[in-house]
């Protein structure tokens, strides 16, 4: 398990809450922006490893790898969001996520530039993402949270990665 250096941990401090719902998010960097995913969805964090390519898959699907006997697809989030390609370095990290899809729970991995720290966020503090024409389609953003001087975009991973299941219906029908 590799984890990149956290950036300015002091800014992402735990906040005191009385009785508000307290969710935790794993934050990571992607093309200079900060994103977060629900910590409960994170199964593990791995370094980049060789994957087996899947023929005729969308380009952001890098392939599959063996995770203790399970075949797990790995997505490159940069490519998914049409961001410029970034060479995989020793900091490159794969976040393995548990996704809720209409067929049940799935395990999928996403390649990100680097992992930051865990953020506690009061659900109150979540603001709905304005349509600011950002790189990431706003339908995948569950909300925004400020952490210190950063704006962290919280990803709805279920939506994001379940998208690809939709393709399968079409594929089968043909």
């Amino acid at each position: 398990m590799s984890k990149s250096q956290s950036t300015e941990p002091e800014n992402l401090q735990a906040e005191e809450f009385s009785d508000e719902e307290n969710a935790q998010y794993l934050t990571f960097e992607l093309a200079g922006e900060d994103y977060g995913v629900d910590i409960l969805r994170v199964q593990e964090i791995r370094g980049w490893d060789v994957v087996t390519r899947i023929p005729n898959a969308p380009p952001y699907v890098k392939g599959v790898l063996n995770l203790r006997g399970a075949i797990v697809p790995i997505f490159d989030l940069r490519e998914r969001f049409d961001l410029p390609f970034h060479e995989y370095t020793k900091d490159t990290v794969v976040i393995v996520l548990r996704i809720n899809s209409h067929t049940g729970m799935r395990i999928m991995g996403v390649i990100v530039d680097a992992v930051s720290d865990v953020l506690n966020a009061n659900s109150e503090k979540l603001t709905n993402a304005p349509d600011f024409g950002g790189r990431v389609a706003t339908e995948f953003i569950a909300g925004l949270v400020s952490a210190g001087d950063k704006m962290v975009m919280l990803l709805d991973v279920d939506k994001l990665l379940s998208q690809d299941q939709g393709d399968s219906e079409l594929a089968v029908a043909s």
Partner: protein
Amino acid sequence: MTIDMAQFHQVFFDESFEGLDVMESGLLEMDPGNADPEQINSIFRAAHSIKGGSGTFGFTNIADFTHVMETLLDEMRDGRRQVTAEAVNVLLASVDVLREMLTATSEDAEVDPERVKVQKADLDRLLAGNSAAEEIVEPDGDEAAPAASEQTGWHIVFHPHSHMMRTGNDPLRLLRELKSLGELTVKVDIEPLPPLSELEPEDSYLSWDMHLMGDVSKEKIDDIFDWVEDDCDLSIESLSPESAAPAVATEDVSESEQEAEAVAAPAPVERRAAGTDRRATDRRESAKKSAPSGGASSIRVDISKIDALINMVGELVITQSMLSMMGEEFDISQVERLREGLAQLERHTREMQESVMQIRMLPISFTFSRFPRLVHDLSTKMGKKIELKMTGEATEVDKTVIEKIGDPLVHLVRNSLDHGIELPEDRVAAGKPELGTVELNASHRGGNIIIEIKDDGKGLDKEVLLNKAIEKGVVSADAVLSDQQVYELIFGAGFSTAETVSDVSGRGVGMDVVRRNINELGGSIEIQSEVGVGSSFVIRLPLTLAILDGQTVSIGSEMYIVPLVSIIESIQIKEDMVNMLAGKGETFKLREEYLPIVRLHEVLGVEDAKAKEINEGLLVVVEGEGRRCGLFVDDLLGQQQVVIKSLEANYRKIEGLSGATILGDGSVALILDIPGLIRMAGKGPADYDNNVRKTA
């Protein structure tokens, strides 16, 4: 001493369910005009057993219900009642209700009392309707004998007939029993005794004149002599002054059961019967599904399979300890022995693997067993005459297949019954026999299970299908489709040409779901049909779902697994053996056939393929779903057994791939789906014509 009967309950339930199956199949096979007495007898015995057991174990509602069924069957087997189609149907419906009752009771759940009441009413009505000369069982309770509450005593004269002892009844025992009731004085009459030389030791000569003093009810005395009443002369007189005439012990023992004479209110019968049938079928199917108590998670295994496994484990242990001993003091000179040991290990492991998989295999009769009933009920309901022929029920398939192939098969059979087989008058008009036939066959072929549903109905009309498809915009008006492709249109979601969606086939739970379910099992389905003659649906399923014998091939830096069962041969061909056929692409001649060449690196998008020219690589000749082609690869690597891992579990089904596996070095290799590949490459024979492939 109280014995807890609950320990016997499970066995009772198990055998009762089996008994119900016997009853059901027996009833289905019964020919009303011409019933086989032995058949009726076996159905009777099954009901009788269930009644007896349920009474003994305290399930009185089941006992009462079964009793009526048993009475009907008893009359039938004695010839006192006619076996009519109506009676058979009522009994069949009763079997369903009884099954529900047993299931509910076995799960400690509530039985629906309404259902039971309704069905019992049907049974009672049938019983009373054309009832045989029924014996009126005497009401329970003591007779109005000298109802004197106080008895001073009885005068009993007991004279056994000469043969009485040969029934195993010992007069001494009877006297002993009398003695236990009160004060007994006995006078024996030895007069009839012959001289010793003429004495037959097995005969009874003596008689006894007794007085039994005490407050004893006559019933108790009667009980003692119950078994021997016909084998003796007996007189029992009350000594109480108020007593009436002596009652002679000839009354029947009345049972605690009472024959239900009540005639149920004539409810609207026919509608109900049909409705009950349908509800019964549905409920039975849902009951079968919702039987998780031991149902889904346990399996009955032939003990010989377990024994075989135990033997193998034993051999494995021996090999393992041999290897470990070797490992303790190993030097290079032992390498041959090491190799042998490892080969042995591999053999044992493989054998065990096969053996364990065998354990998961069950005969497909488990799935087929519901069909006779289904066909019977539905054909009756539709007013069609349909015969079901099943073959290959002993074909063994994996338990998962059994569980998951049921619904698709039901749908396909219902489809044949509903849309395939015509009404009797239509069949006759078409010159066909009135009786339609639906065939259900299962067999092993190659590494596959083949299940076929065939009917001699009206077949699929290509024109109608095509027009419907064009109407729905699924294909363009000028598309040219092969027959196979036209038939496969019916697998499109929401595609039904039936004018009214009959509730028999289900609303839109259509063929698309059928095909998907079959694909999920790693199988495929093919249609053959001829208008006016009939249709056949052929399902192919892999024999084992988890493990595959594979040939590893390399293309560039990538490795893929080709299922060994699909491989015909591997050859190397030269440029000049390749023919370009107009509109068909590259083909090569194999014996008498021209087979298409599939350049895998193109189909799979492998960028660093090494072999570009035909003579640089190898051709793996494969067959899938009746189509053959040659797969062009760089190289053949080893053959190995691989564990099939699902791609869909975490990702989705990919065309051309049937799964993935983890190689010895931990890396993932993809398993090729040959039929899918052939389709993808557009090299199926159907694609030889110019055609439009359906766009998603």
